[in-house]
């Protein structure tokens, strides 16, 4: 089986600033990988590249062996059309630090919107699935409310249900608890642990919650200046890092 995500010689520049230079890594099907590293080391950029929210400057990203935004054809790098990108992107979902729920619709409509209007599922079918997902995240009784009436932790759980409603193969989580009051973090992480245990969705996780990273991820990658400083099993990297920088970083977040 091909890796579910492959970064091949990925370069990302913003103007004159090179954020990622010749980055290579693979994520195996069903694998959950946590990215750690100091602020500005490029973690968010990696997730945003996979979600096609940033333009890939050079290199290739392969999803399930297929090109995401750029393909190699006859030795040339060619940019794919919107339609082709969408075909691959439908397997990818993302949860954001600031939720990004749609304020122009109710909680349940947030969850059914894309299944109905992107995947073309029936309204009833989408609604049943959405209710089951809202139940899974503990918010079934809030289905018909407006999202502005929910707490941050509840909003984030709706955002998780919304992403899951698209049946993604890959889920990208970018500091999903960083904007929450400390007492709300636990519920959101609980929901994510549950998703990790009950599905084989591959995940790229950026988090400062080291216990969570240790529990749910198969692999931890430590980034520094857009490069992988070291990677390995969470127990190894988080308990016995071989680099000073990793140790310093871990001390700073604990």
């Amino acid at each position, binding site marked *: 089986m091909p890796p579910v995500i492959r970064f091949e010689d990925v370069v990302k520049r913003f103007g004159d600033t090179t954020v990622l230079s010749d980055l290579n890594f693979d994520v195996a099907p069903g694998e959950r990988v946590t990215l750690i590293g100091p602020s500005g080391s490029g973690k968010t950029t990696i997730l945003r590249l996979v*979600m*096609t*929210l940033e333009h890939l400057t050079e290199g290739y990203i392969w999803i399930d062996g297929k090109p995401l935004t750029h393909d190699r054809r006859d030795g040339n790098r060619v940019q794919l059309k*919107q339609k082709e990108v*969408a075909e691959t*992107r*439908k397997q*990818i*979902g*993302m949860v*954001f630090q*600031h*939720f*990004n*729920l*749609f*304020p*122009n619709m109710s909680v349940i409509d947030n969850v059914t*919107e*894309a299944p109905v*209007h*992107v995947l073309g599922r029936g309204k009833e079918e989408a609604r049943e699935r959405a209710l089951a997902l809202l139940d899974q995240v503990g918010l079934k009784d809030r289905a018909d409310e*407006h*999202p*502005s*009436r929910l707490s941050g932790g509840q*909003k984030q759980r709706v955002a998780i249900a*919304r*992403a899951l409603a*698209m049946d993604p193969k890959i889920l990208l989580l970018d500091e999903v608890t960083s904007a929450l009051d400390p007492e709300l973090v636990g519920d959101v992480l609980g929901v994510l642990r549950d998703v990790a245990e009950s599905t084989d969705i591959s995940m790229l996780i950026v988090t400062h919650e080291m216990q969570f990273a240790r529990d749910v991820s198969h692999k931890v990658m430590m980034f520094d200046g857009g490069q992988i400083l070291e990677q390995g099993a969470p127990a190894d990297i988080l308990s016995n890092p071989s680099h000073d920088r990793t140790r310093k970083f871990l001390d700073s977040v604990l």
Partner: protein
Amino acid sequence: MTDNLEALRDALPRLGEGVAITLQLTLGGALVAFIVSVVFGLLSISPAGPLRWVSTVVVEFFRGTSLVVQLFWLYYVMPLFGVSMDAVLTGVIALGLNYGAYGAEIVRGSINAVDKGQWEGATALNMSPLTRMRRIIWPQAWVLMLSGYNNLLVMLIKGTAVALFIGLQDLGYQIDELRVDTATIFAYGIGLLLYYLIALAASTGLRALEKRARRRLGLSAGSVHASAGAAL
């Protein structure tokens, strides 16, 4: 004063006709301006360079040249090319193009003011650009647009008085006629009042729409311009 009132009573039917013309120009002009503003506002944020360019040129042209001159062109010059229109229709089109050009800026600005996270959230759900605009961005931009449209509509109502230049007997014209039989201050006072009432009615209607739209987004009914969606 009794003379003034008597003259006003005699002039009422004509004033009524004037109000009718002004309302036709207002409603027709507003409708055309709305369509023009949406079309060119959307073109101005199109990913295709040539479309953006066309929009910029058209918007700048109609904003940068005088409404009166545009009206003259439509009414007196176009017939030389075999295109002649009824005066009210000419007024409606001129007002629609001119105020629509300003409206395009309102549409563009409102769409750009929708929180970036909303665009990204929609993309992460694999929405096509069209679905994203129609289902997510436009409904949120709409709330922001309404207050801009409110100002623009009031300006358009005042702008309908240019109809005088192509011989239309609108409210402005009839007020001027009234002046012949009454004190100048009286006639123009009536004029101020009638234009104000029309503007007030239009403005109240749009404000009600805006309130309803804000409530739908879960925003308070006040007119604080919180960027929609920022905290969701």
